[in-house]
């Protein structure tokens, strides 16, 4: 069963004249790490919300087509039903933490599912360990740094035991070092827990190397979908206003000038390729 199957999805918010999502078709297989990106206003957030049912249940509008999460239709099932299969972590940690202790926040989801107390205890301990915040259990969320708060948010979603995790620009409010640390956490979570990950991000230089697939959205439509190197080196990317990592763009420009090199997505690959062109010699 596919973690995610989006078929002919078109969605228009009530009160809008134009659809926010137009004819979206995408299938996500188990174990993928999908990076979704696109210019501001392209519909990324709406898309994430449709993956868990917030669209259309909490955001009224006209929805054509459907989204299936592990076979469950998002249109027909409630957000709560989907919540145990697909989790969504939002941008702003402040608005995802509702209580005065990390433990209570992480327990919130399992409590809503009316699980027995020992099960809740097990899940809280497990998920806080998975994101390495077990020593913060009794701290108040507002005392924590942005990066720590996002970890608490992730732990509270993990406690629902979803096998598809979606992140909507989780590092928007974090500084670059905290952001990098969070991406590394997401990557290791994926490996350790064997889950499927969908990440919406602007900061491509930090995440391009982690993804197995990149989807580019523009004005509600999917314009590019494929292997990271292919997508990031595609001409069409420039038109959407999305910036490929600097090293990728550098090498693309050199290719245009006639140099033979593979397209890199991180610094290591770029250095390798460039040293080849320079015949092993150094600059400067």
């Amino acid at each position, binding site marked *: 069963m596919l973690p995610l199957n989006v078929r002919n999805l078109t969605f228009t918010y009530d009160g809008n004249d134009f659809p926010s999502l137009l004819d979206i078709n995408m299938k996500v297989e188990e174990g993928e790490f999908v990076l979704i990106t696109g210019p501001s206003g392209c519909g990324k957030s709406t898309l994430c919300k449709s993956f868990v049912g917030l669209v259309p249940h*909490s955001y009224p509008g006209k929805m054509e087509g459907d989204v299936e999460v592990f076979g469950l239709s998002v249109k027909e099932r409630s957000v*709560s039903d989907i919540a145990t299969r697909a989790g969504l972590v939002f941008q702003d940690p402040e608005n995802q933490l*509702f209580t*005065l202790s990390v433990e209570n926040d992480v327990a919130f989801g399992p409590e809503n599912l009316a699980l027995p107390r020992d099960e809740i205890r097990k899940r*809280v301990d497990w998920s806080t360990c998975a994101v390495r915040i077990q020593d913060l259990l009794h701290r108040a969320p507002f005392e924590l740094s942005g990066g720590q708060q996002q970890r608490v948010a992730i732990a*509270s979603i993990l406690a629902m035991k979803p096998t598809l995790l979606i992140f909507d620009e989780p590092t928007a409010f974090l500084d670059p070092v905290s952001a990098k640390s969070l991406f590394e956490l997401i990557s290791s979570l994926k490996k350790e827990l064997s889950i499927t990950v969908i990440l919406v991000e602007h900061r491509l230089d930090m995440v391009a190397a982690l993804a197995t697939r990149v989807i580019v959205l523009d004005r509600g439509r999917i314009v590019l979908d494929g292997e990271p190197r292919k997508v990031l080196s595609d001409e069409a990317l420039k038109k959407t206003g999305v910036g490929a990592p600097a090293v990728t763009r550098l090498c693309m420009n050199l290719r245009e000038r006639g140099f033979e090199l593979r397209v890199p997505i991180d610094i290591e690959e770029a250095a390798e390729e460039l040293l080849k062109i320079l015949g092993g010699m150094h600059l400067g």
Partner: protein
Amino acid sequence: MMALEGFRFRRGESFIHRSDPRAKFLLSFAFMMMAIAFVKLEFLLLIFTIQIAILANGRCLKDWLRSLKGLIPLIILIIAAQLLVSWSWVSAATYSLRFVVITSTMSWFLLTTSPDDLGLSLEQVGLPSDISFAFTMAIRFVPVISQEFQSVYDAQRSRGLELEKGSFIQRIRKYVPIIVPVFIETIRRTYEIADAMEVRAFGAKPKRTRLNTLIMRPSDWAISLIAVLLLVGTVCLYLFNIKVPLINV
């Protein structure tokens, strides 16, 4: 704003912190009723001393003192009013002390009880979980909203807004650029919070289970018993007008 600090929860491990909120509430309520019913200086001093001891145990004397600082204008007002009415310093001291005792009962209760536990106790007492949760969340977001007011105020000051200048009406109008953005941002925030709650299956089951529940320890039962006795005693003495030395004679 400083006055409010004396009512904001501070984490701690003291006996009073760990006592059950329901027991604490009963005791705090009992103290309040006694202070309302018996307006006698010596008696009030006794309750006052007990409350100081409670605050000391909870290590929240400093916060409580800060709240008192904020209440000084009101206290002075009460002293002045009493002096005018009764020409008696004793009377002025009594009524102002009574005010302090009453506000302090709320103060020590809120300073030592986490809003999470407050919400939990409401739930365990029978209130629907939706309502107790709304209550806890409101408290959790108060500092956030107050911070927002500060941010908006700063931003508008940087656009030349000067609240201290102008006629009374002009000054009231100047609050609009502060209240409107906070209001709108709060509404927007509630959508995000609602989304985050839904995604954690809020409402999935009619009754939630709880990881941590409040359990009354023997000391909590003792406190509750004392509180109930005090309340019953207060009501009796008051209703039947029984005079007891020290308390109301």
